[in-house]
């Protein structure tokens, strides 16, 4: 597909133009940490930008969201009102390819054949995704497809002081005035090869899924989870984790909140019985869901290798190590780069 060469100034002008019509969100730095926020209209993420602390999923599937409101009126039927659908038109600029891909995975869940979530759908339709390819992976990253265009409407490559812009989707093509810019020749496109890629062979491969088929009852889960403290870090910071719980609040609203399979309350039933009573079953669920059930159902693993869980796990329970250990039948592997 055609790629166009833009100077930094060109890029800013184009984004400014988009800003007239869209709310532009970009990685915003606060105390050494990046998160998506309102773009100030002038700064672009500098070299210190590797990825955002929080994944972009909450821009589509917020941590808590009112689904409907109800009111009891004595002697009458209760009044139920669905929440309004979000209408804001947005651009997300600077999302990393792994995270853009995670959106295509979330689509399978929230925009699948069986169910379509109207809130998620509205946000997806109203949002243009402009991804920015990494220059160098983080120590904790293990994505193997840094040039993946999945989930992106437009892909950007950073080349020293210039940018290569590649519109991908129809939506992307319509928002990019390609006639105003020069197409990049192959000399320039070749420079993409200088971008560093992690040397991981694919950790989550087909043979892993096969292996997982056989080890549901294996004692390995108990061993692997022993140091896990069953917090929500790995699932809440994961761009693809999407489990939720629906509760009522005192104001008469049904609220959807993120939930995590690592919490004891996740599977606790009204009787008090818990089918996943300990950390062993919970860690197994997390791994199985990502690398077995999700691929079984949708044909692709539910991990994009962003490394957030690796970096932020309070006890350094490294998913890469877990997967390698499963693949190697219990043998421990050094996973340091």
């Amino acid at each position: 597909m055609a790629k166009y060469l833009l100077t930094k100034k060109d890029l800013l002008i184009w984004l400014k133009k988009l800003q007239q019509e869209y709310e532009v969100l970009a990685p915003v730095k606060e105390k050494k940490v990046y998160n998506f926020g309102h773009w100030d209209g002038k700064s672009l993420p500098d070299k210190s930008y590797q990825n955002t602390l929080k994944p972009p999923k909450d821009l589509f599937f917020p941590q808590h969201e009112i689904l409907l409101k109800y009111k009891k009126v004595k002697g009458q039927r209760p009044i139920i009102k669905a929440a309004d659908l979000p209408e804001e038109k947005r651009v997300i600029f600077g999302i990393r390819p792994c995270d853009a891909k995670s959106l295509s995975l979330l689509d399978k869940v929230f925009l699948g054949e069986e169910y379509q979530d109207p809130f998620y759908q509205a946000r997806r339709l109203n949002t243009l995704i402009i991804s920015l390819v990494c220059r160098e992976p983080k120590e904790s990253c293990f994505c193997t497809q840094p040039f993946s265009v999945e989930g992106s409407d437009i892909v950007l490559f950073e080349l020293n002081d210039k940018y290569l812009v590649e519109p991908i989707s129809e939506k992307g093509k319509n928002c990019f005035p390609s006639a105003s810019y020069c197409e990049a020749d192959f000399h320039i496109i070749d420079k993409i090869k200088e971008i560093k890629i992690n040397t991981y062979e694919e950790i989550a491969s087909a043979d892993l899924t096969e292996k997982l088929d056989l080890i549901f009852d294996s004692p390995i889960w108990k061993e692997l989870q022993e140091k896990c403290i069953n917090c929500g870090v790995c699932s809440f910071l994961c761009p693809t984790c999407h489990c939720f719980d629906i509760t009522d609040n005192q104001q008469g609203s049904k609220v959807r909140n993120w939930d995590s399979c690592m919490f004891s309350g996740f599977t606790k039933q009204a009787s008090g019985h818990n089918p996943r009573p300990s950390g062993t079953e919970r860690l197994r669920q997390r791994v199985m869901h990502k690398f077995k059930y999700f691929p079984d159902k949708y044909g692709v693993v539910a991990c994009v290798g962003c490394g957030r869980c690796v970096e932020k796990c309070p006890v350094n329970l490294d998913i890469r190590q877990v997967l390698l250990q499963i693949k190697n039948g219990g043998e421990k592997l050094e996973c340091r780069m």
Partner: protein
Amino acid sequence: MIVLEKIKEKAKELLAENKVEVVLGFTRGTLPGKCTPYFARKVDEVENFVWEEGCNHNLANYLTKLSQKAAIIVKGCDSRSIINLIKENQITREQVYIIGGTCPSTGECPDCQHQEAVIADYKISEGEGAIEDSFQDVLEFEKLSPEARKEYFYKEASKCIRCYACRNACPACYCKECFVEENLPSWVGKTTGIGDNIIFHLTRAMHVAGRCIDCGACVRACPMGVNLSLLNRKMLKDVQEMFKNVSGLSLDTELALNEYKQDDSQKFLIGGE
């Protein structure tokens, strides 16, 4: 290095002689500067232990979940948590063999007063005694206006994503069912709105008052950089001043909230003396 050798020697001996079934310590992690909890059950696994910068998780946290007879390699804060867990009948003294060292992390916890284990069956001492806590940070904070203090806590709490890593990393937070998980009645909403977040953090702070030993595990566990240690330290200071009590220093003293005296200070109550 010598400390690590002594630790390993002891751990091997305990496992070889079947005195314990598991030894809790640290091994090197998968990211630079990180160490990770490690459970050695065989003599040769002991070689994987490290004792260095990065061994900063509070290992006492695991004792309440272990059913086996265990040895644990501790620094000052872990050892103080163990004392509290014994005082609160969560574990027994006999169930755990304590290998006490001096904290290998340097400069990470500026207010630490007890780098050396305060209780141990086998102590590897480096002679660093206890230091008096001056609570300088709390004193400075107390001088701020109520609005400024509120602003600080709101700012910190607003970053929280309610992953509960702070609670789960905390050895004092061992409740089988935490108030945040109860839903009949629901004590606190599940959203990350500032109201719910503040209620979560203030309630947790009250629940660990007089029991928190300021190990900082909660702050280190937090992925979002929420730092409410000032809140914990204010509690620490109040308990110390009002009840003349510092928890986790000796098996002979009760925790402040575990006993009642007629002349207990009431100053923590609104309008109390």
